[in-house]
């Protein structure tokens, strides 16, 4: 009771301080910074711009303000020289705990008022796609939890040092690191969580889980540090060490600190959200595995059971294998690193399997011992919480699994056989059954259509579909479908139900028609595998997209009300949408060899070039020059200026981690900027746009050599009648 009374006294005393009210006012206004200038989340969705950024700014600014208030309050007694009196009235450690709780209570009150004040503003700014649940979670996690973290950090610094100036320096450095040099590491951003986007049309549970995890990890760590600093609270006129020695006489404090620190370190190391894939993106050992002699796969089927509440997946995959070698073999399966394999049966009998430690490209490899039987039915049970790729750790949210949206890609859907060839044909058939809430529409990312085969009494339905291939991507969500006919194609355009009004108002379907007509007219109709049909699927905001036979992904950020109504771009949607549509022609997987990622020749070169041409036609030459050609030139000039490009001997002496960071960035630049600029140079050398269109049309419609169906740089040069050197740039990119 005494503790509660003292807490209330301290809390109301805190509320009487003008500095507290100043801090509260500044904190309440701080989301404004997220609307005006502090915008760490870059995606173009309305929720990102008008919810994530204000909440993040509120967290950062509010955190700093409350850290200053904490230092001001903790130093008050010392500054007023009444410390001896205060210590005589209440034991110093009790007082430290009371002050901490009072500050956290004041922060909670301030946060509650701020969140309530900003609710109507956010609702009005975000418009029809506003979601109250997202608002509460975004403000609670991005802003609310930043305040106690800052209070704990500042309070710990003061309790260790007992000096305001040194504590200020510590808090400034700790905050500065989180905001600057640690910003690229999602686990180190204690003040400004690594959030790059919030979805308007679908759920955001995955990114909220990620932020909550990091917030709680840091909360545990800073609480542990605070408890240690609490043991250093000076008492009985003793120095820090003597006070500490007194403090550890009772084991509860040190034990609590140890538990909190150990818990947070364990949570840090065992985080379940991001994998530990090899950061060297040039290494592809899984693809380089040699195929098993005499072992083939004729069919694969899977039953997949996503848990839309927990965000987990469980499933059972069955492979029909033929073993003609007459001896046991070891098959390799790629699974998402977040999954574990619980059992493997071969013809109904358990067989040994071993999960591997090595991860690459968001996959882990498990090895299974196959018996010598000629016909094997291999049954694999798997499940877990899918992990995202380490290389995209600051852009989490892709593998969202909820009652509104689901995305399962390749080995996150079904384990993939790495070293077993298909029986007979090029790829083996796969059938998938998936159980999801009935309001969700299942969309396989391929030419196949999914159909409901059973409706269950618990509000779920079973969907099933078939396709051929060793991978497989599945989207599901609360989608609407619109059918469009363009370029001789039947296009099924799927978009989120929440976006219906915006899509119709912006005429997105007409814009899609224009792009498809352009590519069909210039390069020819899509000929590969889709039987004259194409699915366009609006995905949850993901920073880009991809395409495959008969399906292409469109990022929701290109369809936001703000983007679709951007007068600078005319009435057509954003160019990323065009880019992803163009990949249907210059496909990611269909027409370019998956070779060395450092090779500048890839699907991106021709796709970027075509996107530029369409933008030029839609928005004019000046727009295309400003947004495409000039940035490409600048990027290529930067590339050639780069010290490590000119002096690779220095690159080779750097530690591996630093070397990879540099090489990955340079490789991307060459594919997305240097190659389209070379193609544009080739356009000039071959006689202009019409001549280049003719060449590209010829290449697109060329007769494929199925042994190697990929379009190479040499073929492109031969078609243009140019030598490689003619397209090279040194430092001057002028054409």
């Amino acid at each position, binding site marked *: 009771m005494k503790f509660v009374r003292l807490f209330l006294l301290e809390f109301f005393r805190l509320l009487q301080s003008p500095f507290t009210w100043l801090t509260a006012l500044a904190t309440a206004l701080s989301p404004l910074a997220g609307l005006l200038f502090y915008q760490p989340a870059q995606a173009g969705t309305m929720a990102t711009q008008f919810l994530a950024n204000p909440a993040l700014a509120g967290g950062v600014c509010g955190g700093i303000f409350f850290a200053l208030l904490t230092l001001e309050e903790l130093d008050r007694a010392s500054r007023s020289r009444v410390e001896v009196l205060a210590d005589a009235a209440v034991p110093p450690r009790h007082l430290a705990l009371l002050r901490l709780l009072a500050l956290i209570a004041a922060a909670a009150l301030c946060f509650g008022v701020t969140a309530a004040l900003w609710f109507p503003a956010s609702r009005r700014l975000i418009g029809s796609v506003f979601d109250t649940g997202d608002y509460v979670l975004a403000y609670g996690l991005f802003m609310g939890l930043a305040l106690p973290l800052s209070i704990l950090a500042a309070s710990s610094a003061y309790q260790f040092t007992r000096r305001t100036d040194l504590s200020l320096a*510590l808090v400034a*450095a700790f905050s500065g690191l989180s905001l*600057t*040099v640690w910003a690229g590491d999602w686990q180190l951003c204690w003040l400004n969580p690594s959030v790059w986007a919030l979805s308007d049309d679908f759920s955001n549970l995955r990114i909220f889980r990620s932020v909550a995890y990091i917030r709680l990890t840091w909360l545990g760590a800073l609480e542990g540090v605070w408890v240690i600093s609490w043991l250093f609270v000076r008492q009985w006129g003793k120095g820090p060490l003597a006070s500490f020695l007194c403090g550890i006489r009772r084991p509860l404090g040190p034990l609590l600190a140890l538990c909190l620190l150990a818990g947070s370190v364990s949570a840090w190391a065992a985080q379940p959200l991001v994998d530990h894939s090899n950061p060297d993106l040039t290494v592809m050992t899984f693809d380089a595995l040699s195929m098993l002699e005499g072992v083939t796969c004729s069919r694969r089927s899977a039953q997949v059971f996503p848990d839309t509440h927990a965000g987990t997946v469980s499933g059972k995959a069955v492979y029909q294998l033929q073993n003609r070698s007459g001896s046991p073999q070891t098959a390799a399966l790629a699974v998402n690193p977040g999954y574990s394999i619980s059992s493997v049966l071969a013809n109904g009998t358990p067989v040994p399997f071993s999960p591997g430690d090595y991860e690459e490209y968001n996959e882990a490899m498990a090895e299974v011992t196959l018996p010598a039987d000629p016909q094997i039915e291999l049954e694999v049970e798997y499940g877990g919480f899918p992990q995202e790729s380490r290389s995209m750790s600051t852009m989490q949210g892709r593998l969202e699994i909820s009652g509104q949206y689901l995305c399962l890609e390749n080995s996150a859907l079904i384990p993939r056989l790495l070293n077993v060839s298909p029986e007979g044909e090029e790829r083996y058939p796969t059938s998938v059954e998936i159980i999801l809430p009935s309001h969700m529409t299942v969309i396989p990312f391929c030419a196949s259509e999914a159909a409901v085969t059973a409706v269950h009494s618990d509000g779920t339905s079973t969907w099933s579909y078939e396709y051929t291939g060793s991978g497989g991507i599945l989207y599901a969500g609360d989608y609407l479908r619109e059918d469009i006919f363009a370029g001789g194609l039947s296009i099924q355009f799927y978009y989120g139900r929440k976006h219906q009004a915006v899509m119709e108002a912006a005429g997105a379907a007409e814009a899609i028609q224009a792009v498809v007509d352009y590519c069909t007219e210039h390069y020819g109709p899509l000929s590969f595998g889709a039987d004259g049909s194409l699915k366009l699927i609006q995905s949850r905001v993901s920073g880009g997209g991809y395409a495959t036979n008969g399906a292409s992904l469109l990022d929701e950020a290109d369809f936001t009300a703000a983007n679709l109504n951007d007068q600078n771009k005319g009435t057509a949607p954003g160019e990323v949408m065009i880019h992803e549509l163009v990949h249907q022609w210059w496909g990611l997987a269909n027409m370019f060899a998956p070779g060395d990622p450092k090779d500048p020749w890839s699907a991106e070169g021709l796709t970027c070039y075509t996107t530029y041409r369409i933008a030029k036609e839609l928005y004019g030459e000046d727009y295309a020059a400003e947004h495409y050609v000039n940035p490409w030139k600048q990027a290529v000039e930067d590339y050639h200026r780069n*010290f490590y490009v000119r002096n690779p001997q220095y690159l080779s002496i750097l530690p591996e981690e630093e070397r990879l960071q540099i090489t990955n960035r340079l490789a991307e630049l060459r594919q997305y900027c240097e190659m389209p600029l070379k193609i544009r140079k080739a356009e000039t050398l071959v006689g202009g746009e019409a001549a280049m269109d003719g060449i590209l049309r010829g290449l697109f419609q060329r007769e494929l050599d199925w042994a190697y169906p990929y379009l190479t740089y040499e073929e492109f040069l031969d078609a243009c009648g140019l030598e490689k050197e003619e397209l090279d740039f040194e430092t001057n990119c002028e054409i």
Partner: protein
Amino acid sequence: MKRIVKYECRRLIWNRFFFGFLGIFLFYGWQVLKHEVLPGVAGTAPFSPWSFGSYLSRMAPFLWAGTLLFLTFFTSRKARRAAVLTDASPADPRRYGLARCAAVLTGAGLLTLACLGEAAFFYGRYVHWGHWETLLAPALTVLPPVLALALGGGWFLGRLRPWLVVLWMALPFLWMALPLPSALGIWNGSFFAEYPLTLGSLDPGFSLPGAVAAAQGAALGVGGIAFWGSFWGNAGRGG
């Protein structure tokens, strides 16, 4: 007077604050070197004058804050109360003030040396490089104006009101976030990232446009004048 300088230096440097601040300072510097300097600034080498200048620009706010934190030893209310005693002593207040100034400069000098030493260690370890003479120009361009303005302005403001030093301390953190005119580009680091690109050559040697040189000279001058005003204007009292 040497004894007073020695005593003040010991008071400023031989304490938890200095070593704590040094630890924070070095940690921050290492992060800047690893993440910002190593990739090279403006396409130049990580050990070019431009990359090194960028590093110094990023460290300048902490150097500034550190120098002013040393100054708070002499401008705080507690120090002002003790000034009643020191003023009553037979020592010349100006000389006593200069002795304190020398102690602050020693502290700031040690921080500067730590900053430079850390870069030397980093370059040696990561890129096996050690031609330090080429980095003298950016160091002289960045550091003296920062130290002069911090110390001169801080000393001057601290004599007026102790809390003004705290505001002065926050200034570099504010201008790091502001879009300053190009002449003040050194103060937020943009000069080292942008100016070499305009020189039209690869790995350009270090040079300063007139406006930037004038701004740095002005900062040095203003710092010097403020410092002079603090001492000779009122016999160095309180400082």
